[in-house]
């Protein structure tokens, strides 16, 4: 059967200052198909979709839609040309009705004598909803009265009407993580609608981190990694399974030296931190774990596994709903990162610029931000003392700075991260939580950071690491904790001489 080409992308490149988000992407989208798009965070999927919907423009490359040149300047233009997107964060205006939301920005046809004819608008909305086979949602209901699944349906209806009204030649609809707030039955309904849309001659691009769902609904699967389209495959049972997909998404090969396995030591017996049945309703449940002195634990899991929320709770940023955190034998409540730090826990956040450094402050000021006492003389902060100490860290960690008064906002990823580590070292915290510590750091600095991590562990401090890649987690850790859907599924020992294989671990992540 001849497949009709709806959209084609050739050699799309998107360059941001300092990062190459998309590297020469070429893809074709045909009518009647569901294309699954998978990849890690930062792999380029969202950037590509932003370009497709007109929220961004490509640095170079060619896009064609329905055979014509396609370069929308904003989502409205994209809609008019037949491309619509349902965003991950719902974009409905909660205090307006379903009908108002569906037609927002396009009310012109309902204007009589300068006023909006609500009745006509409601009727038109009812028609759209009926077409989508969801007549049970009333057009005049306010969106904040609807449950999440219904809201999702309204979003799709809104996008579909915006797109379909104009282009009868088949539209491309992008769904970005549409199932994150749906339960099993609602997901089934969504898939029904998706199949209906495709049968009518449209194409649906389904972006999700839930590989099982992608495998169920997609006809073709495209895998993104590091800004490149690394695999494109037909979704056939013999060829495609979760392990294959995951390997394509994150698989990397590096030598043993990369993670300095030679320096990995056996942790001591003392338990510095213990989690007992720690739960946060809706995010993770019954996590029990023991962290020993000198130990590095890597937590692995896909997005939605609960690992980030777990670290947020341990660091004091969020509250658990039940369970205990035991530090040095005492049960502790951690109402804030400040109290966590008093107990010796400090985190290195994933978003460096937003949460790890204060861009307007100098390097030496950043370094003492987690421990004022170290730079106090006679009870007041001594800038002189602070500068001296910062100098020492600069040399020790080899931070590339002209001087310690330099504002850190302009530093490269690797150097900024080293400033963060300097602060962490200066804080004398005993338990460190590292959230993607090498994200956005160049290769050379990555090695230096691994070295710093080894140093810290060998000094007798304990670390919990959320690795950038599965391989990194395995390479750095003494033990690997695997989480899935909020629960710990398996804990692997990872001694330097016998590291577990990625494939074995992936099984427990999916």
């Amino acid at each position: 059967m001849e497949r009709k080409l709806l959209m084609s992308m050739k050699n799309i490149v998107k360059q941001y200052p300092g990062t190459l988000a998309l590297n020469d992407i070429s893809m074709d989208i045909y009518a009647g198909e569901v294309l699954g798009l998978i990849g890690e965070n930062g792999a380029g999927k969202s950037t590509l979709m932003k370009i497709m919907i007109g929220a961004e423009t490509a640095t170079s490359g060619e896009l064609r839609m329905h055979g014509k040149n396609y370069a929308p300047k904003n989502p409205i233009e994209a809609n008019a040309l037949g491309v619509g997107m349902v965003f991950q964060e719902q974009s409905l205006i909660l205090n307006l009705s379903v009908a108002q939301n569906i037609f927002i920005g396009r009310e012109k046809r309902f204007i009589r004598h300068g006023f909006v004819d609500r009745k006509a608008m409601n009727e038109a909305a009812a028609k759209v909803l009926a077409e989508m086979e969801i007549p049970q949602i009333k057009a005049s209901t306010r969106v904040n009265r609807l449950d999440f699944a219904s809201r999702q349906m309204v979003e799709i209806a809104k996008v579909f009407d915006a797109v379909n009204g104009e282009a009868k030649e088949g539209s491309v609809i992008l769904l970005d993580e549409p199932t994150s707030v749906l339960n099993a039955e609602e997901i089934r309904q969504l898939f029904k609608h998706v199949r209906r849309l495709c049968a009518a001659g449209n194409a649906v691009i389904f972006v999700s981190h839930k590989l099982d769902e992608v495998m169920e609904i997609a006809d073709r699967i495209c895998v993104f990694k590091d800004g490149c389209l690394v695999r494109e495959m037909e979704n056939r049972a013999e060829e495609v399974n979760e392990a294959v997909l995951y390997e394509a998404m994150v698989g990397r090969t590096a030598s043993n030296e990369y993670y300095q396995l030679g320096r990995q030591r056996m942790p001591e017996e003392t338990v510095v931190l213990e989690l007992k049945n720690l739960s946060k309703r809706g995010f993770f449940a019954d996590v029990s774990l023991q962290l020993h002195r000198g130990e590095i634990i890597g937590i692995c899991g896909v997005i939605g596994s609960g690992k980030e929320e777990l670290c947020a709770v341990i660091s004091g940023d969020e509250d658990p709903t039940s369970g205990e955190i035991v530090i040095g034998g005492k049960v502790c409540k951690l109402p804030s990162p400040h109290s966590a730090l008093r107990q010796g826990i400090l985190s290195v956040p994933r978003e460096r610029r937003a949460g790890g450094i204060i861009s307007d402050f100098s390097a030496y000021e950043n370094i003492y931000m987690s421990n004022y006492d170290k730079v106090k003389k006679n009870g007041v902060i001594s800038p002189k003392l602070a500068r001296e100490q910062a100098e020492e860290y600069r040399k020790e960690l080899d931070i590339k700075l002209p001087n310690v008064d330099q504002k850190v906002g302009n530093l490269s990823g690797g150097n900024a991260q080293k400033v963060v580590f300097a602060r962490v070292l200066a804080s004398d915290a005993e338990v460190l939580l590292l959230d993607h510590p090498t994200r956005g750091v160049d290769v050379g600095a990555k090695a230096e950071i691994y070295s710093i991590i080894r140093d810290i562990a060998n000094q007798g401090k304990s670390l919990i690491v959320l690795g950038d890649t599965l391989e990194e987690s395995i390479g750095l850790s003494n033990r690997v904790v695997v989480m899935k859907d909020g629960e710990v599924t398996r804990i692997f020992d990872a001694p330097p001489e016998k590291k577990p294989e990625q494939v074995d671990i992936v099984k427990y992540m999916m």
Partner: protein
Amino acid sequence: MQKENSMWSKLAFNRETMIKLFSLVSVIVISCVFCVMSPAFLSRRNLLNILKDLSPVLMLACGEAFVLMLGSIDLSTGCIASCAAVMLTVLLGKIGPAAYLVVLGYGVFAGLFNGVAHTYLQIPSFIATLSTQAIWQSCAYLLSGGQPLAMLPDIWPYVNWGKASFFECVPLLFVVAFLVLLAYTVISKYTGIGKTVFAVGSNERATWLMGQNVRLAKMLAFLMSGLGAAIAGIFFAVKLKSRIPTVGVQYNMLGIAAAVLGGVQMTGGRGSVFMTLLGALLITIIQNGMNVIGVDGLWQQIIFGALMLAAIFMNSDKDHKGLVVK
């Protein structure tokens, strides 16, 4: 986009300097103008008046600076000052000099009240302090019976220190104010909690995650503001030797204007507490000069309104971190 950002960023670093320069130049220019219009402007006697008038504004400004540095705002300072002024007058007649301590305590209380409303109840600072503004103004009215009243002679001994001066041109009032300013400056620059206040204004999320006590810093800032306002109120009462329940109302915004004209950034994170002296000086000189040459009080109000708009305009963060200006 990138180029534009860095140009503004460069300007941003210099924005603080730009404003301080503007204020300094304005002070000099305006002084000269007034001097020319009326030689009495630079007389010893007038200098004394200027410094006397400067003192309460300075107290309001340096306290407000702490809150502005957080990225928040305190609109209640003028009314706390009103209430403090009235309270002092009333209490001096009842418990003598201990009244000073009570009023200072009130300043601390008012500041903490604001702090709790903002920090624990998580009410945005502008609406919280707009509300407390009304509460304290009501208190000022209640305590004074709604009428301005001159201080009775039996308490004059307690306020006569307001008349003292050095070399006939530096009033004791100003010396006290200056000492308080120094204390505030030291706290903001050399203590951990002061540093945290700056950090919160610059990047609250990072400061929180770095393990600093954000709540305490916010409470401190509002405390400093409330205390500064109470001290200003004391100065008002002593200067005027009477209780005027509305004495501080126009100063609600002037304290902010003075801090901003001294280089404090309204979005927080940058600025110098000490330099609020410059901003307060500018405002006082304009006020004083206009009085000396006989400009109608109404025009003063108009001019101050315009000055405030100018200050805000110069201060506005055109390369603001993407936050929507509401």
